[in-house]
């Protein structure tokens, strides 16, 4: 047994020393910026809600439960995205929900949330034929369906998505002003029902970059005036 003692000591040494070393190096620093963004980011752009009338927040908020887009499997830029639609008497549609036209928000006016330059758009993708199912030609390259990206000229970029086919009324290179109509709500791309997808990101890339919290100014949340805030799942919001 004596001749084995050094081996056992080496075994114990390894057992104790390995767990206590190199952990920080192996995990690395990636994500510090994401963490800082989550905790401290203040939206630079003077954003207003990009629609008229009352809309209901289906996805929005900082927790996993309220912010379904936190899981940024398809596009890193949409971490703080909102999915918003019109709800009347507790429902977003009347009669047959499979028809886009029966959804209250379908065809509603969508506005520019702030001043900026339109740098990218798509206006020619069919709305999903059956609400609740995504058309077979939708893939990773056209998830957003018909969309607009607006450069706010301060390092922030707004992306509005799932417009109704052919309704976008601006062109790449156009300067838009806050509140200007840019298209109509629809159900194109990876969308299971007519709604507006909105998010703010830090690059002009399609769905990529770091997603930024979008704080809107001057709106009512369930009849309470909010000077600056982030709508959260389950709230009904309307701009003042």
């Amino acid at each position: 047994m004596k001749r084995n003692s050094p081996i056992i000591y080496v075994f114990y040494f390894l057992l104790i020393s390995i767990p206590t070393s190199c952990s920080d190096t192996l995990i690395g620093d990636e994500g510090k910026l994401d963490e800082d963004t989550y905790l401290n980011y203040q939206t630079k752009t003077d954003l207003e809600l990009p629609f008229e009338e009352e809309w209901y927040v289906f996805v929005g908020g900082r927790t996993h439960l309220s912010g379904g887009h936190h899981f940024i499997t398809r596009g890193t830029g949409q971490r703080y995205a909102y999915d918003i639609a019109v709800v009347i008497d507790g429902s977003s549609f009347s009669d047959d929900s499979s028809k886009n036209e029966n959804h209250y928000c379908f065809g509603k006016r969508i506005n520019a949330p702030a001043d900026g330059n339109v740098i990218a758009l798509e206006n020619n993708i069919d709305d999903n034929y059956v609400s609740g199912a995504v058309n077979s030609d939708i893939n990773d390259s056209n998830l957003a369906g018909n969309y607009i990206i607006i450069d706010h000229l301060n390092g922030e970029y707004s992306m509005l998505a799932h417009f109704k086919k052919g309704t976008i009324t601006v062109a790449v290179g156009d300067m838009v002003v806050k509140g200007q109509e840019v298209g109509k709500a629809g159900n194109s791309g990876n969308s299971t029902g007519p709604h507006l997808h909105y998010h703010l990101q830090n690059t002009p890339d399609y769905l990529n970059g770091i997603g930024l919290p979008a704080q809107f100014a001057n709106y009512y949340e369930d009849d309470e005036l909010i000077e600056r805030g982030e709508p959260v799942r389950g709230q009904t919001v309307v701009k003042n």
Partner: protein
Amino acid sequence: MKIKLLLLISIFILLYTNGFSQTNTNPKNNNLEFSTGFNSGSLKNLEFAPVSRYDYDGLFYSLNYERKSRNENLFEVQVDYLTTELKSDAIPQLNTDYSKIGLGFSYLKQIFDKDVFSIHIGLQSQTTASLYRDNYYLVDQEFGIASRFTYQLNKKQYLTSKLTIPLVLMRLRGDFGLDAYLVNRYQGALWNLEYGYSISNHFGLRLSYDFKYNRLQIPNAFRELQHQVNLGINYKF
């Protein structure tokens, strides 16, 4: 009452194992083991949350079956389970439940055997399902190479070190489809260090340490580091 029952069971096991150790001298080629231990880990999954580092710890459970062939080749199957909570001091609002279920297979061929030292080398398959709260899950399938070094300290004691290097990862992300990664984007290592002690011909104890590391180099960085210390009891037959 419980203590008496425990005492009776212990006496029975001891008598039973002593009985076998005196009468049965055939080599045992099958080994079934149950083990449990402490897992301490760190996780970064930017796809899941904007958190640079979650830490977690908890108990895990493992069931392992090993079969040795006439040529001393080894076939192993291992099932393990861990449930814990991911915790971040930076953003506690994003703490969440975390469970992992793993199923591993390996086949190792003996390539060296001299006196008390032997080396096996072979292939390993590892399937792991990671379940987070709030409808997010990952299923990973890894294929890699494995090597095992065994040193027999004496008739009753041995030391084993097993190193597994995955070469391919296939990852299923919730409803979002399957992606495959090779070693240029996915690096991992599993190192196991084990001390075994035979109580009898049929029963043995095992103390082991596992070091697991996985790194996926994609825009949404993924890193996971685990340390496991566990104690197992095995039955040879």
